[in-house]
Structures are given as C-alpha cells and as structure tokens.
C-alpha cells in the first residue's frame, strides 16, 4: 500500500531541473558502465589482423562467427556447458533446501545452540575457499622440481669448471718480419 502512494507522489511532481540533470547523469553513468562490455562484444567479431592493427573502437569489417566457432571447439563448450549447468542446478537445489531449513530453524529457536551455529556458519563464510585438485598440485610440484634439478645441474657444472680449471696468463712471442736495409 505504501509503495503505490510513493509512486503517485513522485510521478505527479512537476519535472524540475534537478530531475533532468539526474537523468542525464545516470544515462552517462550507465553508458560508461556498459562500454567495456560492448568493446568485448565488438572484439569477438574482429579478426586477429583488425585487433592488432585497427583502432580499438572501430566496428568489425564483417560479422563473421569464426571466433565463436574456435571458442566452441577450444572450450569443448558442449560438454563443459552441460557440466556447469548440471553443477549449478544441483547446487542451487541443495542450497535452497538446506539453507532454507537451517535459516528457519536458527531464526525461530532462541536456544544457545542455534545462536552458536549462526556464528559457526558466518565464520565459514569468511574463509576463502581454496580448492586445489591433487593432480594439478602434483603436476606443478613435479615441474618445479624438474626445473630445480636442471638449475642445480647447471650450477654444479659451472662450479666444477671453476674449481678444476685455472685462469692462466700466457705470453706469446710472435715472429714478425722486418725490413732490413739491403
């Protein structure tokens, strides 16, 4: 009820200068906010040559979907999109159910256990979630270890060379032919 009252009183006001400037300002802000999105959209239709050589704001020469086809292939978009969809739908269902139950119970029951569990959950939200998959971690560690081994080998070879060799100065006498007065 109070919202309809509010709308009427605002729309029936006479348009003042303040309203017009606000409108203009918000339009400019909205355009500025959308510029990066439009530019990326623009980029998605450009060929590589146009990207590097042309002006960033220029419209693409022709609308070709080559970039989209390449992205589809590289991302394997069919499978990955389906996976993401599955993951999202199931997560949302579970979250809606479990969070709804839990929030209702915490809000309705004033016992200490529930106050404590409220704080318990909030603490969890604050923790940044780090999901390292074990295989990825192993690969990266193996790479770094390999690099370390190579670096060690190079350094030890250098040290060996420096230890077993010496810098020696040698004086050469070169025969030089000189003209003699005949």
């Amino acid at each position, binding site marked *: 009820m109070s919202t309809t009252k509010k709308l009427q009183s605002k729309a029936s006001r006479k348009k003042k200068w303040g*309203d017009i400037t606000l409108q203009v300002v*918000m339009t400019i802000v*909205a355009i500025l906010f959308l510029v990066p999105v439009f530019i990326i959209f623009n980029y998605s239709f450009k060929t590589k040559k146009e990207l590097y050589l042309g002006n960033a704001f220029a419209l693409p020469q022709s609308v070709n979907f080559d970039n989209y086809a390449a992205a589809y292939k590289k991302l394997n978009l069919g499978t990955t999109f389906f996976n993401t969809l599955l993951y999202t739908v199931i997560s949302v269902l579970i979250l809606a159910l479990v969070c709804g*139950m*839990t929030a209702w119970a915490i809000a309705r029951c004033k016992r200490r256990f529930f106050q404590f569990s409220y704080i318990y959950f909030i603490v*969890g939200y604050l*923790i940044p979630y780090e999901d390292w998959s074990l295989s990825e971690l192993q690969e*990266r*560690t193996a790479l770094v270890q390999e690099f370390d081994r190579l670096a060690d080998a190079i350094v030890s070879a250098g040290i060996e060379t420096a230890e077993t060799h010496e810098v020696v100065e040698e004086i050469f006498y070169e025969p030089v032919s000189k003209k003699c007065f005949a």
Partner: protein
Amino acid sequence: MGRKKLTGSMDRQYLLLVLPGLIVFTIGIIIPMFLGLFYSITDRDGMSAQKTFVGLKNYLDLFRDSATRDAWWFTIRFTVWNTILQNVFALLFAVALDSGIRAQKLYRTALFIPCLISALIVGFIWLRMYSNVLPSINEMLGTEINFLLFGSKDTVLTGLLIANNWQWIGYWMMIYLAGLQSIPADLHEAAKIDGAGPVKRFFNVTCPMLAPSFTVCIVGITTGSLKVYDLLVASTRGGPGRASTSIIYQTYTTAINGRQFGYGSAMSISLVIVLLLVALVQVKILKKREIQV
C-alpha cells in the same frame, strides 16, 4: 532463560532441520581449516610424506618476511579504498535511481550486468582496456593521457580499484535500493511536513533506516576485498614486481610455486583470524545502529 537441554519434540525437530547444513559445512569447510591449522605448524612442502614439526616458527617468519608485509599492506589499502568508494557510489546511485526518474529498470540492469561476469574475466577485460582500448582514445583525440595504469607500481592500485568497483557497484546498489524501498513513505512525509529539506531528510531519515543495508554492504565489501585473488591473476599477476600482490596471491605463490605448504598454511590461518576480527568488530558496531521497524 537459562541453558536448557534440548528436550521435547519441537526442539528435536528444530535440531533435525539444522543438522544437514551443519554436517555438510563441517565436512567441507571446518575440517580442511583444521587440517590447514595442523599444516601451519609443520614444514611440509606439498608432496613429500615427511612433516617435521617446527612449532610456531612459521608464524614468527610471517612477521619477518617483507614480502608478506607488502602483501598485507597492499591488501589493506585495497580494502579501505574499496569499502569507501563502493559504499558511497552504490548509495548515491541507489538514491538517484529511487528518486522517480524514468527508465529506472534500464539503469539498474546496465549497472548490474558487470557483476555477472566472473572476476577472472573482469581482470582480462580491464587489462585489454588499459593497454589497447583506452590508449586508442589518445590517437583519436590527439591527447596524451597515460592510460597504462597497470604499468607502474604507483598507479596499479588505482587501476585495480576501477576494475573492481566497475564490477561490484551494481550489486551493492541493488541492496541499497531494496533497503531504500522498504523505508515507509510515512516517515518521509512526516519529515517533509516538519519542514525538512532533502539533504536533512537523507541524513536523518534515510541513513538510520538503511542501517541493516549498511551492515550487509560494509561487511560484504570488506571481506570480499580482503579475499581478492582472481582479479589479480587475470590482470597484473602480482603487479609490476610485487606491487599488487594480495595476501591470498602471496599465499598461493608461496604454497604452490614455492612449495612451502606449511608456511602458506600459516599465512592462510593468519588471514582467517584477521577476517574474523574485522567482521566481528564491524558487525558489533553496525548492529547497534540498526532499528527494527
């Protein structure tokens, strides 16, 4: 009401409702956190099976390490600026949109779209913007403004603030909008009858009624900016040198690339403690100002 045992079928049902959430939460978050706590007092290097206990050496090293101190300093500056800028602008835009201009839904959508993009993509977009798109304005207009904000350690914070704020202002603006629209119009009308101008009304009617939205926004923005990572990975990778390394970025590079799992866990735990303290302080201060309508 003293501490009662959970007797009675009603209490049992309440408990049953909370249990699934508690179980999943404990397995998913609390146990790994305690594992991390355990690792933080060891010397583990990620893959080898040996774990030598080093006690609190990791935590002491945290204070002596200048890289970690720089990371903390950057994260704190980023958080403070973010909190101020995002709150102020989100509130301003929400008030502007709520004051009866036309095409309100259009502006709301336009400002909200950037927060649907993941932070990784936002970093990617702004890297291209600063290096390719904006300098081409220089070519078109013949000016010579320096747009390479990610190139020097003095301007990299500004560049990241612009990118992050671009993404998130719309989101917090929606929360303030919802809060604004839940203020009963009678209060505004009563204030108008009493002769209060718009500015006075804003500070004395709107702001107190918006206190719950303030709590949500301030706590959310602070914890979100303390956890910044994806944005940095996609755009500056720690900045020129180490100028834009956040504490989480430092944790990742130490734990994975530097293979100092134990030390990284100690950094992680210290971040959790700081987050807890910050959130607790904020919630305590802000909740006092809330009025229940």
